[in-house]
């Protein structure tokens, strides 16, 4: 595999969505000091699925609503997402999921 830096832009987002793989996700997450667990993967797959289906990355508030629907009410909370992807959850989750940088992070 190419070093991940060859595939990402200067902020660490993959330049081509098709370059994403689970290995790439692990590498990008490590750069963000996140060790991926099953709880992270569940969110990453959901985010990718939403993006594929709607061609859109929702704002945090809306994604949390979708998490509540698909993963259960206990997980549909901003605190839960914040704990998995600290500080800027949507940015980090998108970066690791191989999706473009969200245009806003409200």
């Amino acid at each position: 595999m190419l070093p991940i830096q060859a595939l990402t832009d200067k902020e660490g987002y993959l330049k081509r969505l098709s370059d994403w793989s689970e290995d790439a996700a692990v590498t990008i997450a490590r750069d963000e000091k996140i060790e991926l667990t099953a709880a992270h993967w569940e969110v990453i797959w959901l985010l990718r699925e939403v993006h594929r289906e709607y061609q859109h990355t929702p704002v945090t508030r809306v994604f949390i609503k979708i998490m509540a629907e698909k993963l259960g009410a206990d997980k549909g909370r901003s605190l839960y997402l914040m704990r998995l992807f600290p500080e800027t959850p949507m940015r980090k989750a998108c970066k690791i999921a191989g999706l473009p940088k969200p245009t806003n992070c409200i």
Partner: protein
Amino acid sequence: MSETKSFLVLNRHAPYASNFAKEALDVALMSAVFNQKTSLLFMDDGVFQLVRSQDPSEIQHKNCSQTLPMLEMYEVRHIYVDEISLNERGLSEEDLVIPAQRVNAQEISQLLTRQHVILNF
């Protein structure tokens, strides 16, 4: 945040020849995030944005019709379509990718009049 304003996003152009469809949708979703009272109205060739089964992959375009169902999740509930524009183009509700309320000229006139802001695309 200032007071809530009513925003009408008015779509009158077909998708793909321009970026209007995408920009209109971005604006509609963002205004909803900022808790504005957002509505969308589709008229003239803009009704073609609502047509089902669009697949622009071979013309290297993003498929905005796939994003339309997101409006509901952003709690944008007022989506209107001009019935004459639909009829003129031989379209009916079954052809549309999301449910939209059919409105006549009189209703559109009232809709335009009661908006704080009309954004044209």
